[in-house]
């Protein structure tokens, strides 16, 4: 009979192989690395895996990922309660937070309108958004979906939906990236950068 790995090791390899972008060889390498790790490290690793699944939930208010309900941003009374920034995914919240420019609240749509993947408006957290706009004292909505076709369409759809509510609706600016090169900028970006120019 052909020799195979011990059952527990095979199981670990199979589990690693389930992760995106990890093939059978990489899974094997990772499993052997785990074997070489210290007991404490392995336990911390396993604990982190179980913990993240147990503790992280979706905030019932803003639909962001959180370990407390409501999430820390929704709880924070220091933040401007009248501004609401709409983003596609939880990662986008972190990206905007890093700028330290924005001090308002967030709403995470958990996706974008993407007909090619069979995703329409009803697959996003839009109902939750409309409830918030009715219940909270939001005065300005910042649409911060990605500046690609799908993100633009999502922004357009939301702006039309929210127009009758009489809110100030803004879209994040489009333009040339810092450190970029005008020569390589596409016409769409450049034309928006020119129409959205500002006085200095």
């Amino acid at each position, binding site marked *: 009979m052909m020799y195979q790995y011990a059952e527990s090791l095979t199981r670990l390899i199979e589990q690693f192989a389930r992760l995106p972008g990890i093939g059978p060889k990489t899974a094997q390498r990772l499993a052997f690395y785990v074997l070489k790790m210290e007991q404490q490290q392995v336990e911390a690793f396993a604990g982190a895996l179980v913990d993240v699944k147990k503790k992280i939930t979706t905030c019932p208010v803003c639909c962001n990922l959180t370990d407390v309900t409501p999430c820390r941003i929704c709880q924070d009374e220091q933040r401007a309660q009248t501004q609401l920034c709409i983003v596609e995914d939880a990662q986008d919240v972190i990206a905007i937070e890093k700028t330290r420019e924005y001090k308002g609240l967030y709403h995470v749509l958990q996706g974008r309108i993407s*007909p*090619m993947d069979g995703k329409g408006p009803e697959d996003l957290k839009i109902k939750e958004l409309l409830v918030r706009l009715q219940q909270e004292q939001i005065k300005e909505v910042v649409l911060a979906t990605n500046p690609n076709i799908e993100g633009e369409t999502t922004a*357009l*759809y939301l702006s039309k939906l929210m127009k009758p509510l009489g809110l100030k609706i803004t879209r994040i600016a489009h333009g040339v990236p810092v450190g970029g090169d005008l020569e390589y900028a*596409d*016409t*769409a970006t450049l034309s928006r950068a020119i129409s959205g120019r500002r006085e200095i």
Partner: protein
Amino acid sequence: MGLYRTEALVLRSRKYAETDSLLTLLTQKRGKVKAIAKGVRKSKSSLRGGVQLFTHNEMLLYEGRNLDIVTQSQCLEAFTTVQDDMAAMTAACYWCELLDSFVPEGEKDIRLFMLALAGFHILALDYQELVMRALEIKLLFQLGYMPDLVHCVSCGRSLQGEQQIAFSARRGGVLCATCLEGDALAFTPEALKIWQQLQQLEFSKLKRLKVTSSGLHILDEVLEKFLLVQLERPLKSRPILKEIWQAKKS
């Protein structure tokens, strides 16, 4: 192997690795091609402007073993009208999904490329439903998937002037009243005429075509089933596009 220059339409773009995109292109010189655009999700990428979804570009590609690599790209036409309207964007998605699903990889077809390009130019027009039906029919015709619309697919009798007809997606054509089968779809001489006209008419003359909403509805049902049978799976964006048209009308 080596570099080649071609005009290309970006039909699909997916995230790939950390900052790359995996593109499905319809090229003028090599038909449908899958290509990697490296680093285009970084904000400083010089390639980014020329690899956006629903754009017509002039590209320089390096032929790889499995996937080609986009080395340079310049946007020729960005179809900005598509971005300004939800229905137009969904229609563009549908057109791309249709092309991606039906066109085989690596087969050069200039006429098909011209049809795809024309599609992008006209899909934001206000008689969009008719435009999409015309695109579907012309694509089926171009790729050789046309059903038999002249003779009954069961008994072979000519159906010219016949009033009672049905359509069988499974058998690929029209049926006469005597050969009617269980899974045949309702079809009318009017819907049949619209189909033939859409197949022959140039896009510039589409607007002049007089059609009733019931005729268009029957044609829609028949085409949907026919596309499903040919493809053996449903097209994801078709129901969403229909929903958006419904919402627009109400």
